[in-house]
């Protein structure tokens, strides 16, 4: 310790940029940052402005005048399309899936992490292998399966196949593996039945992961397109994303399309606003992808 303190601290010997260049450098980066941020936000801002703009007249500069703002586009698009029904479908698709995926993933994750049963290794590798196959590659067989079950155009067909979420199982297993074995052994010695160990020990311990995973599963489903497009063939069974896509292929005025778009984005924004830190931290740590 003393030796270190004896010596004067080493000062980095670098060519010092002139004062002017330095402040310029300090100002340029934040300016660049702010500009990039503005460009990122502009499409959202434009969407909202057009959604509130009066339907007649040119979009610019009319859309920029707050005095003209109107709710007309919203009421029109709500009455002329199935948006309320689509919202219910999207909510069901997302929320039911979140609940089931979280339950299944923590059960399977616990089994893979702490239980010894024949074939565990092989089964786990099979799980990992399914992660490698892109969803689109299995689209057709999944669809045929759902068709065989007569589930096309039903909530069953929409929701059930997406509950087998390998990524969620993998994540839960990784987390539960880090928990000390003694916890579960102690409970077993005390004669606790399996369901009690699961509800009293596993579930409370995995709560933080459940929160993060829940957000991701919600966003996966809320923003999902291809599967609902294929399964929800009638207008009644479409989700909001599919509905929005069909809305803009029909001759619906752009103001109303943007009003519809604004409605679909609200839940994502809520999730984002409330849980941003959870989301960003977990991506940085685990590479979870929505």
């Amino acid at each position, binding site marked *: 310790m003393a030796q270190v303190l004896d010596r004067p601290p*080493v000062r*980095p010997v670098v060519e010092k940029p002139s004062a002017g260049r330095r402040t310029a450098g300090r100002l340029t*980066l*934040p300016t*660049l*940052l702010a500009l*990039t*941020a503005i460009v*990122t936000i502009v*499409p959202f801002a*434009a*969407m909202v402005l057009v959604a509130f703009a009066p339907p007649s007249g*040119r*979009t610019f500069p009319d859309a920029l005048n707050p005095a003209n703002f109107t709710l007309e586009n919203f009421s029109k698009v709500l009455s002329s399309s199935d948006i309320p029904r689509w919202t219910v479908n999207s909510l069901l698709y997302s929320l039911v899936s979140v609940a089931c995926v979280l339950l*299944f993933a923590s059960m*399977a994750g616990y089994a893979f992490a702490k239980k010894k049963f024949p074939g565990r290794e092989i089964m786990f590798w*099979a*799980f990992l*292998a399914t992660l*490698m*196959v892109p969803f*689109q*590659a*299995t*689209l*057709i*067989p*999944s*669809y*045929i*399966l759902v068709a065989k079950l007569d589930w096309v155009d039903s909530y069953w067909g929409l929701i*059930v*196949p997406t*509950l*087998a979420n390998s990524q969620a199982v993998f994540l839960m297993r990784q987390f539960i593996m880090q928990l000390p074995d003694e916890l579960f052994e102690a409970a077993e010695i005390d004669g606790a039945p399996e369901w009690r160990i699961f509800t009293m020990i596993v579930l409370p311990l995995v709560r933080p992961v459940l929160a993060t995973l829940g957000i991701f599963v919600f966003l996966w489903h809320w*923003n999902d*397109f*291809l599967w609902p*497009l*294929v399964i929800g063939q009638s207008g009644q069974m479409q989700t909001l*994303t*599919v509905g*929005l*896509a069909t809305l*803009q*292929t029909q001759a619906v005025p*752009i103001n109303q*399309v*943007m009003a519809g*778009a604004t409605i*679909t*984005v609200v839940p994502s*924004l809520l*999730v*984002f606003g409330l849980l941003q830190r959870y989301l*960003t931290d977990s*991506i*940085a*740590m685990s590479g979870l992808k*929505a």
Partner: protein
Amino acid sequence: MLVLFLAFRFLPAIGAFLLSLTDYRISGKWDFIALDNYTRLMSDSVFHEALLVTITYTVIFVPLTVLLSLGTAVLLHQVVWKRGFFRGVFFLPYVTSIVLAAVIWKWIYDAQDGLLNSVLGLVNIGPIDFLSQSNTVLPSIAVTSAWKGFGYSMLILLAGLQAVPKSYLEAAMIDGAGTWQRFRYVTLPQLRPVLFFVLVIETIGAFQVFDAMFVMTGGGPVRSSYSLVYFLYDSGFKYFDFGYASAIGLVLFLIVLIVSLVQRRLVGRDD
């Protein structure tokens, strides 16, 4: 639970392979036709076009999105001022759907009333019909997807930047390395595994492009934005040629597999 995975993950994965060897039609009737679907693919000009479109799109999209996310990550890393706020702004498009992004950007690109052409009109350029010209359509869609998704890679890269040991950078500074040299010879090599991860994730994502094309162009003009997955979707759900569509799916799987192996070779050489 197990039944669920067996039925909806393993069965489709194996089923995809088996189906691709049949001529399964919507009636449920099928015959084993061995590799006929694959020989048909090899001589199908639509498949060639879709493959070319997908590769072109990937070549445009991946550098664009990686540079964008690396650029914003570096900016966020350098500027402490309101970092959380800016990080949130850049991440915002990521929580929305690609369909929403496509709907908004389709209007932005619109030739009559779109935002971009209104702005270009102010400086007397255009109007340019971005989505109706075969040479602008893929870059336009790539920009849309990059806008929607760059926040994810940005976060990964930012975490990578923050993990570069400060002592390395200080040592380089003492040796007289300038800002660019420090970035080029210290930060970038340290960032390599993270950059590799981002590159693989984005390339795989690019090969699966579909939603944006479906919404913005319908694959047009004249199939110049008609991707492999679009071809798969049409074969399956427009022509109900399920065996053929499964073969396309398998080709997609192989491409994704090869890409990740090749990139592992090229970029991950020393780790």
